[in-house]
């Protein structure tokens, strides 16, 4: 088996992908949803599963149909969410909320595919809503980024949200 460790990706790749993560955060902060969609692969999988707080030694069986999700989106479903946000009828987002994303702890790892890298990162999302209520959400992300021509596209993202109880009355935001 070719099981020897993969060499780290070239520095240029690490820089390009890290820059893509920062650019993505800026586009979302600015509600440039079309710009963000253009950074996604056609086959994007965008997943945030529900979880529960369980004892380490818990012996219970997995749930028959799985945990359920907060997001389980393909490109069409992300577009559907964005169409709703842009419909002019989402009163919770008007006036717009102040939202800022900070991306950190970026680790770019090689995969077996030459044009793909796995990327771990942490997202801190600051949302200042309505009359000044501030919510801070943190999440871990594991991505697959793919190089297509001169661009890096997000091909898959698995999000882990660090909150057992969502501390806000909506999640009209992407991680």
């Amino acid at each position, binding site marked *: 088996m070719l099981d020897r460790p993969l060499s780290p990706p070239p520095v240029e790749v690490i820089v390009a992908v890290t820059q893509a993560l920062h650019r993505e955060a800026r586009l979302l902060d600015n509600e440039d949803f079309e710009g963000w969609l253009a950074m996604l692969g056609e086959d994007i999988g965008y997943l945030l599963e529900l979880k529960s*707080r369980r*004892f380490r030694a818990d012996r219970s069986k997995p749930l028959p149909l799985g945990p*359920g*999700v907060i997001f389980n989106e393909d490109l069409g479903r992300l577009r559907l969410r964005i169409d709703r*946000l842009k*419909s002019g009828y989402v009163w919770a987002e008007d006036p717009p909320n102040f939202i800022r994303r900070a991306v950190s702890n970026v680790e770019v790892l090689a995969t077996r595919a030459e044009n793909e890298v796995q990327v771990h990162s942490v997202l801190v999302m600051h949302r200042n*809503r309505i009359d000044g209520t501030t919510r801070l959400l943190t999440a871990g992300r594991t991505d697959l980024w793919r190089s297509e021509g001169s661009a890096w596209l997000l091909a898959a993202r698995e999000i882990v949200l660090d909150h057992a109880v*969502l501390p806000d*009355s*909506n999640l009209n935001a992407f991680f």
Partner: protein
Amino acid sequence: MNANIADLVDSRTGRQSRAIYSDEAIYRQELERIFGRCWLFLVHTSQIPGPGDYFRTFMGEDDIIVIRQKDGSIKAFLNSCTHRGNRICRADRGNARAFTCNYHGWSFSPDGALAGVPLENEAYFGELDRSKFGLVPVTKVAEYKGLIFGCWDANSPSLEDYLGDAKFFLDVWLDAMPGGSALLGETQKMVLGTNWKLPVENVCGDGYHLGWAHAGAMSAVQTMDLTGLSVGNSGVDLDGGLSVAGMNGHMVLSALDGVSGYAFYPDPKPILEYLEANRQTVIDRLGEVRGKQVWGAQVNITIFPNLQLLPGLNWFRVYHPKGHGQIEQWTWAMAENDMPEAVKAQILENQCLTFGLAGLFDNDDGDNLTACTEQSRGWRTAQMDVYTNMALGRSGKREGFPGDIAAGLVSEHNQRYFYRRWQEHMMAQNWAEVPTYNINSLADQEAEHA
């Protein structure tokens, strides 16, 4: 306080004082007279299928563990060590042979018995009577077709009597198909800065907000007609549905088309196929009215005080009060066990899409409910009233259905009955003073036909 409560709600005119959302003394009284007295939903049997399976929940602000016993029965206890009061279980759910307190190591078996005390002989000199220090059980625990409820009041009516004619509608989910029902997925928990009554009111009767508050979501995913409700609240078909109340404080909204529960599924086809393949079975079990018109339709069921379930949209929800003006909203997807796995999976998926934590619809409601609460707290607003006075006096009997019924899903008929029930409980010293009513009861209708 009672004179005050009498003045705070007028169900004949549909008036509520905003103090019922903002006055902390009223909230403390609700914990006693509503959450301390009514039957409260604890768990669905599907969530704790095997011996030792447990689920943590709340009755009012009291932390509860519900545990499946070795003999298959279900017991519920306060999640509090009888020694110094510490929480004994900090997990949401799981399977356990015992619960051991983190503080001093007292250990309780699933039947609530105090099974182990460290240094029992050395430090207590063998003089501790363990039989007096078992976990405190919920006074009454009972099941209705898979739904487990608990009640603190020994003098409450039986669960069957408490549910009354609301069972007619509950059975449209619980007993439509022979395999019964289940809840799916992990608990979807959200904190909301709202008084607990406002989300109950929103779902128990308020079809009025749908086409306006949820216009963005409707424009994104609506694939079928729902009693003429449309984006921008531009139309409504009052003949297409019913607002049913006057059933011991329980309320139902129901469309009558047998399919519109799935109006907000981007691809409802597989579920519509399941409905049509099994409709005759349901007609045989529940009769023509429920089998043809209600099963599959948009149905909102509210069991007083804090349980709401919507067969069709398939979300099931309880609201736990978390102090004055704050709640946790807990949601699960609901399915029938006879559904093919692919249909169940689609239901879980769609429930999360529409009424999950990032739900296209759910994310429209939170800010409205929070703001209604906040706008009851000002020095001036706390002295003001709010109104549920739509379609006053336009209700009556409908052949084949229980309850006092107003036409359509857009009415404020149900909300008036919700606040009436709230007031009845808040003014009553005990269960004997709480009126029981099943208006146009099914039993009376049967007697008339006999």
